[in-house]
């Protein structure tokens, strides 16, 4: 698989690296269009590895994926599933339960999904959450650090105010904030017009730093983008006959100024090339 092209975000990447090296622990990543942030996020994994080596760990959480963020318990499970590979902390094995859906339509069976777990009977989700939170507190008490752990909460603009309040009261204040004091970094990405500076419900209440994604390939970023786009065109073999990779890249950047349009045009060209 070739690398996702990140066309003109060298300054932003450097700022992320600086953030990792700093004492600051909360970063907001903003883009007026979700697509800009999404492209950038795809490179964060390599930035984490570059900075923290093999112990670096990027944990992705998305309100619309894998049921995370929607439920504080699910978030803690996700964090633990990632952490336990590096720590001695053990979490419960997934329970095997049956979820029979509808008459004559078994959509269930054992629930054991890639380490995800849901216990549908005879348990208290609240108590289970507290158990995991106590385990974190215990780790902190015994001097564990979370250096190299980066939590990325994506699409935060999709969280409703109620969910944000739950997140803040059930996760951020009791657990995550303490983890940041022990070295963990947290990145919240969202489209700014949705929640930033709206109210005390925003996640988190205070960002130590924020990075706004550029929307266009204008000005100083143009040459940088052209060079990287040319490299990508060569890598995936999209050269135009007679124009070469550079000509193709120039053409795309001439006709499309916005980040989104450029990415979509290249995508379309690559998909066409498959036929």
């Amino acid at each position, binding site marked *: 698989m070739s690398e996702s092209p990140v066309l003109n975000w060298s300054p932003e990447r450097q700022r992320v690296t600086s953030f990792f090296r700093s004492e600051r622990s909360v970063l907001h990543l903003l883009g007026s269009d979700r*697509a800009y942030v999404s492209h950038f996020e795809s490179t964060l994994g390599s930035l984490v590895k570059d900075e923290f080596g093999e112990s670096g760990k990027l944990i992705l959480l998305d309100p619309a*994926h894998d049921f995370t963020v929607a439920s504080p318990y699910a978030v803690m499970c996700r964090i633990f599933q990632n952490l336990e590979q590096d720590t001695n902390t053990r979490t419960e094995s997934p329970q095997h339960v049956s979820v029979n859906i509808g008459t004559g339509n078994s959509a*269930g069976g054992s629930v054991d999904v890639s380490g995800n777990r849901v*216990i*549908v009977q005879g348990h*208290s989700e609240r*108590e289970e959450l*507290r*158990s995991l939170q106590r385990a974190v507190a215990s780790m902190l008490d015994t001097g564990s650090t979370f250096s190299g752990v980066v939590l990325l909460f994506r699409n935060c603009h999709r969280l409703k105010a109620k969910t944000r309040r739950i997140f803040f009261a059930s996760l951020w204040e009791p657990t995550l904030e303490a983890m940041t004091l022990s070295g963990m970094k947290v990145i919240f990405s969202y489209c700014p017009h949705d929640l930033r500076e709206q109210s005390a419900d925003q996640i988190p209440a205070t960002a130590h730093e924020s990075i706004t994604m550029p929307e266009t390939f204008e000005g100083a970023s143009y040459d940088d983008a052209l060079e990287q786009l040319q490299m990508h065109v060569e890598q995936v073999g999209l050269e135009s006959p007679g124009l070469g990779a550079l000509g193709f890249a120039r053409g795309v950047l001439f006709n499309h100024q916005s980040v989104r349009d450029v990415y*979509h045009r290249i995508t379309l060209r690559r998909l066409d090339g498959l036929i």
Partner: protein
Amino acid sequence: MSQLSATQEISRVPEVILLSAADSHTDQSALLAMKEFNLRASSMTILHEMGLTEGSGVEWRVAPELRAAAIDFGMEQRPSFWKSAHEHYFRVSAGEVRPERPAYMNWGLGSAYHGVELDKAVGLANYRSIAHVESLALTLSSLRLSEEQTARGLIDKDDPALIFLRGMAHYRMDDLGQAIPLLRRIANLDEPSKEVAVAKHLVGRFDCLRSNKGSSTKGPQSMLRESHKSAAKRSDKPHLAQVKHTMAVCMLHTSQTGLANPAIRQLQQSLSLTRELGDVWGEAMVLHTLGQALTGLKGRHEEAIEALKRSLEIGEDLGYMDHVDKVQDSLRRVSGGHDQPRAGSRGDALTPPRTRSRRGGRRKRRQ
């Protein structure tokens, strides 16, 4: 004729339509779909590389804006292909659980979501079933998917299945102000369904515990009796265990003399059921209420302590320390011999188990 945007053009690519028909994918589930329809698997790689998918962990989905465009195009312009895609995902969802499937399919949501696309009645029945599963994450995910389909006009937002789902979502978020009015609408329906029985249970409990001590709880108790009757008729033992517990708590809440013994009988029946079902957490909570109820009765001090100690033991075994703290508190008061707690006066005795689904399987005791 207006020129199509790049997004619109991409949304018309068959692979994009196929991938957009599912809420999310793993690479394996996407490859399976591509193979089924004889489409180009490498297009998936392109979408990944160009940032047109969003993912966390092993799962991903087509980026929202592109997915919305692909759904519109698929539904309107390629109805036959669209239907086939959902038939495929429905089959995969209904099959044996496989780790390579996205979580929403493994957890039963696939049959609801893709069911609605194929046959509204089937899908809605599945949404109803999922609403009973005691998992906030699963409930919220069901809500998100059903709202997406409501916005597309596939289902009516006022369908009882969705009202119940919304009610349970708010209930599990402890947002009773929103939950109770929704559940009350379901409780007032004249149908012998489990959803109505659950709604009557939760609304009855809310109304009972909200009433002032000593005041009449005739209305709530009647609602709880109806819920009990429904559970008995449907031989729904898990629900029966819960509603008996709540009925006891409600009786004890009224503080009327003469209700302690009937309440204890209900609790003992509830206890038998939780044990029969292997629901140790339910057992722990009933024992806590029972211990508190017995405390107030002459000559039953030892029984009270025994119940509380057993409840404590289970709480410790499960690692549920909040429960342990509450029971220890109750034990201290009982052992102190003064300021004895009144039944249902605090702790989880007043918050008996919510409508947990216990369909199939039993929770194993932790070692």
